[in-house]
């Protein structure tokens, strides 16, 4: 597919074609501005391609109407560099919020939220506010929120971009653990260390073009 933003002189994605299997773990790497986040936005139905098709979970979403987007998003979890937690809610409440706003009852939240917080390694810290948690712990809350609805796909756009190397590795392991439950994980990163340790599929992008697509790849 091809994507040129309005007013942009050159396409941000130029004739890119990738296919990701169910249950796969894929890194998207490349320099800043190469178009990695744009791919994530396509998968979230936030931007549409000018040319080509986007197929997610076996459904062509290229021309999906915007009113169908909310339901579509419920099958996708998403984590960002800046965590995007609600500062006036505790870890528990942040995760529960994501369930309650899609119509799940408080009883369901009471059952599954502690479970998923335990899974991400935050057992015992449910009632801390984001400012009472370290960066790594905040990102764990964000992962818990993305995963609590058991999505088929987890998208992560530079999830370790704000974290130190050790914490980054921990988050990486967490995503790996989630991948092993059968969830497809797509992760955008700058972090060569992580990519080299994991030895998973690597898709490298430069100026909107795929320059490498390698199973069990390394960075650079």
């Amino acid at each position, binding site marked *: 597919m091809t994507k040129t933003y309005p007013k942009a002189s050159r396409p941000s994605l130029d004739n890119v074609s990738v296919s990701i299997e169910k249950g796969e773990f894929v890194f998207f790497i490349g320099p800043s501005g190469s178009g990695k986040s744009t791919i994530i936005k396509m998968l979230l139905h936030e931007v549409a391609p000018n040319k080509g098709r986007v197929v997610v979970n076996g459904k062509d979403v290229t021309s999906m109407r915007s009113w169908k*987007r909310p339901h579509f998003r419920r099958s996708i979890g998403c984590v960002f560099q800046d965590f995007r937690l609600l500062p006036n809610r505790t870890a528990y409440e942040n995760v529960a919020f994501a369930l309650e*706003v899609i119509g799940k009852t408080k009883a369901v939240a009471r059952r599954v939220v502690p479970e998923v917080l335990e899974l991400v390694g935050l057992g015992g810290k449910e009632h801390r506010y984001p400012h009472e948690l370290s960066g790594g712990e905040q990102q764990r809350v964000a992962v818990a*929120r993305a995963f609590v609805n058991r999505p088929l796909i987890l998208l992560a756009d530079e999830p370790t971009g704000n974290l130190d190397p050790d914490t980054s590795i921990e988050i990486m392991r967490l995503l790996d653990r989630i991948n092993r439950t059968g969830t497809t994980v797509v992760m955008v990163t700058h972090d060569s260390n992580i990519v080299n340790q994991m030895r998973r599929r690597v898709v490298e992008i430069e100026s909107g073009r795929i320059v490498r697509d390698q199973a069990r790849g390394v960075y650079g």
Partner: protein
Amino acid sequence: MRVKYVLSEVLVGLWRNVTMSIAMIITMAVSLTMLGASGLMYRQVDDMKDLYYKNIEVSIFLNQEVSEQERTELQTKLDGDPLVKDVLYVNKDEAYKRFKEMYQDAPDLVNAVKPDQLPESFRLKLNNPEQYKDIYDQYKDTAGVDEIVDQSRLLDKIFNILTSIQNIALAAAIVMAIAALLLVANTIQVAAYSKRREVAVMKLVGASNWFIQAPFVLEAVVAGLIGSLLGLVALVAAKYLLFDGSLSALQGLLSPISWGDILFIFPLMAGVGGLVSAATAWITLRFYLRV
């Protein structure tokens, strides 16, 4: 749970920006009061038109030197005129009696006038009051006729004045409504900004559009309904203080406004207040949140 969530969000929203909420509610109240008042006047003027136009007369006054024969001829002609429904002859004594009755509060005036100074007249009821002009053209040059006076001329003037008052109230309602709309749009923008993080998360995890919009739209609707309630209070106060109070002297002239009329106009005010606020909020959100 979701209903409770939405309702508590509405109250929190109104309270978070309470000065703005008050401004919004007051402008809406004023606008809706004007709307209600012009609606009431509309009914009132209709009632009055029915009442007055049904009873108006055309008076043909005879001059002092009219002869017996001229009067009889005129009477015969009027009796046979298809435009005329009813003819009543009022002689000088009768005219004086009516005059005395009409000005019973001003004995000086009554004493200053002698019975034979008042002209005799024919009082006509027309089949169609609007055909006054035909009557006028037909009889103005008839021998013995002094002057032809049509009450509907006066009524037209009065009703023109009432209609312009009504139009002014309506225009004021519209101008205030525009101010109210801008305030609603602004309040909703501020509210959406202060909840931008929540909204971003809700969009990300797939909350439905109505669920994201509902608290904002309902916030505006609640403000609109409170505004219409205040408008109702203002109308009730106006009836109580003005119509039943200082204007009660005009009671015989103005047809009375009943409590029923006011209760009848309230759903209109509440409906307009609620719907217009909801639409404004919804449109604002479409631009501002793009949901």
